C-alpha cells in the first residue's frame, strides 16, 4: 500500500497513462452494449424516470395536491356534490379542467401522481438492488474463495435455509415487525433477495480461483486479500451489476405487491399505493384511466432494469 501512495505523489502524467487503457476499454464495452437495442431502450426509459424523480414538477401538469375543479393549493372552496359524483373523472383536456390521465376518486391528477411516484420506485429499486448486492456479493466471494471449507459450508447452509422461506410472506413479517416505511420495505426486500446473487457470485468465484492467473499471483506472493480484490472481484463485478439490475426490478414489483396486500407506506406517493387506493375505493373495473397508467409505469420501470441487466449480461459474457 505504501508504494501506491508514492505513486500518486508523482506527476499526473503517469496516472493518466495508467488510466488511459481502462477508459478505452470502457468505451469499447459501451459500444458493445449499444449493439443491444433493448439495452438502449431500457436506458432511455430509466433516464426519463430519473428526470421525473429529480424534477417531477417540470414534467407533471400539476402538483400532487392539485384537486380537480379546485386547482392548486391553497384550496379555499370545497367540491360540490355533483363534482364529487363525477370523480374519478376520466381524462379531460381543459373542460372542465386539464387532466390528461383523468383523476382519482379524490380528484388528484393521475398523470401527476404517476410522475411524482417515480422517485419512490427509483429509490426502492436502486437501494434494494444495491443493498442486496452489498450482502450477496461479499458473501458469495468469501464462500467461493474459501470453497469446501467450513466458512463456505456455513454460508451455503444459511442460504439453504433462506431458500426454504416463502419470500413474500416472510417479507410481510419483516415489514410488519419494523413498521411500514419505505426504508423498512427496502431492507425487507434486500434481506430476501440477495440469495441468487450470492450463489452466482460463489460459482463464478469458484471457477475464477482455478484460473492460472490467480495461481500466478499466488506464485508471485500475493496475499488472499490482494487476490480477492485485485484478481477475482473485478472479474465478478460485471455479473453482480447484472444482478443489481434484476434485483432492482424485483424490488419495484415486490413493493407493489406489498402495497396491494395493504403494506404500503402511506406517506409517500408510489405506484403501488395508487393501485392500493383504486382497490380500496372499489374502482378497479370502473376507472381504467386510473388502473392502467400506474401499472404501465411500474412495468416499464421493472422492464427497463431487466433490459439493462440482460444486455449487460451479454456484454460481460466472456464468450462473446
Amino acid at each position: 500500500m505504501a508504494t501506491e501512495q508514492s505513486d500518486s505523489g508523482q506527476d499526473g502524467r503517469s496516472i493518466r497513462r495508467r488510466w488511459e487503457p481502462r477508459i478505452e476499454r470502457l468505451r469499447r464495452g459501451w459500444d458493445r452494449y449499444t449493439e443491444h437495442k433493448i439495452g438502449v431502450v431500457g436506458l432511455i426509459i430509466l433516464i426519463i424516470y430519473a428526470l421525473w424523480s429529480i424534477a417531477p414538477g417540470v414534467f407533471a401538469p400539476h402538483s400532487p395536491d392539485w384537486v380537480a375543479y379546485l386547482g392548486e393549493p391553497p384550496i379555499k372552496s370545497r367540491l360540490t356534490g355533483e363534482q364529487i359524483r363525477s370523480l374519478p373523472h376520466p381524462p379531460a383536456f381543459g373542460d372542465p379542467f386539464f387532466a390528461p390521465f383523468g383523476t382519482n376518486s379524490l380528484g388528484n391528477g393521475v398523470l401527476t401522481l404517476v410522475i411524482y411516484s417515480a422517485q419512490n420506485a427509483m429509490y426502492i429499486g436502486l437501494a434494494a438492488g444495491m443493498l442486496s448486492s452489498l450482502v450477496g456479493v461479499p458473501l458469495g466471494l468469501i464462500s467461493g474463495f474459501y470453497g469446501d471449507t467450513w466458512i463456505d459450508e456455513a454460508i451455503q447452509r444459511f442460504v439453504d435455509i433462506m431458500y426454504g422461506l416463502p419470500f413474500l410472506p416472510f417479507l410481510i413479517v419483516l415489514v410488519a415487525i419494523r413498521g411500514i416505511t419505505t426504508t423498512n420495505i427496502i431492507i425487507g426486500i434486500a434481506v430476501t433477495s440477495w440469495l441468487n446473487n450470492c450463489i452466482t457470485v460463489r460459482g463464478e468465484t469458484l471457477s475464477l480461483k482455478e484460473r492460472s492467473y490467480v495461481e500466478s499471483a499466488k506464485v508471485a506472493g500475493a496475499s488472499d486479500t490482494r487476490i480477492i480484490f485485485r484478481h477475482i472481484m473485478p472479474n465478478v463485478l460485471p455479473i453482480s451489476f447484472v444482478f443489481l439490475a434484476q434485483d432492482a426490478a424485483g424490488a419495484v414489483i415486490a413493493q407493489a405487491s406489498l402495497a396491494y396486500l395493504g403494506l404500503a407506506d402511506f406517506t409517500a406517493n408510489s405506484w403501488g399505493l395508487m393501485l392500493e387506493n383504486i382497490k380500496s375505493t372499489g374502482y378497479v373495473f370502473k376507472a381504467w384511466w386510473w388502473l392502467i397508467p400506474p401499472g404501465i409505469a411500474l412495468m416499464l420501470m421493472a422492464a427497463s432494469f431487466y433490459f439493462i441487466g440482460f444486455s449487460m449480461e451479454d456484454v460481460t459474457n466472456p464468450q462473446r
Partner: protein
Amino acid sequence: MTRISGKYLAKRIVVSYLTLLVIMSLLFVLLRSMPGSFITSMISSGMTAEQIERIRETWGLNEPLWKQYVQFMINYQTGNFGRSPTYNAQVWDLIVRRMPRTLVLFGSTFIIGFIIGPLVGMYLGWWRGSTKDKSIFSTSLLLYSMPSFWISWLFIWVINYELDWLPSAYMFTQFPEFEWTAFTVMRDVLYHIALPVMSLTFIGWVGSMLIMRPTMNQVTDEGYVFLARAKGLSERTVMVKHAARNALIPVATGAVVSLAFLIDGSVIIENVFNWPGMGQIIVSAVLNRDFPVAQAVFFMLALLIVVMRLLTDVVYTYLDPRIKFGEGE
C-alpha cells in the same frame, strides 16, 4: 431406474428436517417480535383485568417466551398445530382444508409454466440473436415486469367483467343449480381455476424460460450437437433430442428459484381471486398476529419448498445420467 441411494435419501431428509426446524425457530422469534398481539382484538373495553388475564392464560401467553418456544417445538413434532384465535378452530383442520386448494392452484401453474417456459426458451436459445428471439425475449421481459395482481385485474376486467366468460372468484359456484357429482365438481373447479391460473402462468413461465434460453444457447456449441447434425439428422431432431434434452438439466436446478416466484404469485393470486387456500389466510394471519395460523402456513409452504427440492434431485438424476447421488446402483 433412479440413481439415488436410500442412504442418500435418508441423509437428505434429515438435512431437510433440520432446515425446517431452523426455519420454524426463526419464524417463532420473528413473529413474536412483531408489535401487538392477537388478544388486543379479543379484548373489549368492558373486560376486567381478571378476564384479560384468563384470556392470556388460555392462549399460553403468560409463560416465559422460551417455555412457549419449547412447547411450540414439541407440539409441532407431534403434529399439534394449536388453535387459531381468530378463526377459533383447530389450525390443523384449517390447513387440511386449505392445503389441497393451494396445491391445485399452485400445481397447475407450476406444471403449465414449466412446459411453456422451457419450450419457448428452447426456441429462443436456438435462434438466439434473431429478430424473433429479440422481440419475443423483450416481450417476455415486459410480462415478467408486471405485478401479478395488476395483470389479474386486467384479466378479470376483460374476461369476467366485460365478456363474462369465466368467474373471477372462489373455487366453486356459490349456489349451484347442478347436482354434485365427481364430474360436475371437477368441471366447476376447472371453470373457476381457469382465470387465476391464466393470470399467474401469463407471467410465471418467464422464469424457467430465462434459465433455458442461455443454457440452450450454450449447448448449441457442444460437440454432440455438431455430431448430431453431421449424422444427417433434421434440425428439429437436433434441437429437441440432442440440444434441448441437455439444456433442460440446469433448468431442473433453477426450478427452485422460480418456485419461490410462483409461491409469491400464488399468495397474491389467492387474494385477488378469493381462492380459499393458504395464501389467502397467511397475510391476514400475520397482520392479525394469529401466530398459530401463520406458523402453520409458513411451515406448510416451507415443507412444500423442501419437498419440491427433493423432487428436483430425482428429476435431476433422471435427466443427467452422469449425476449419482450416493452409492446407488
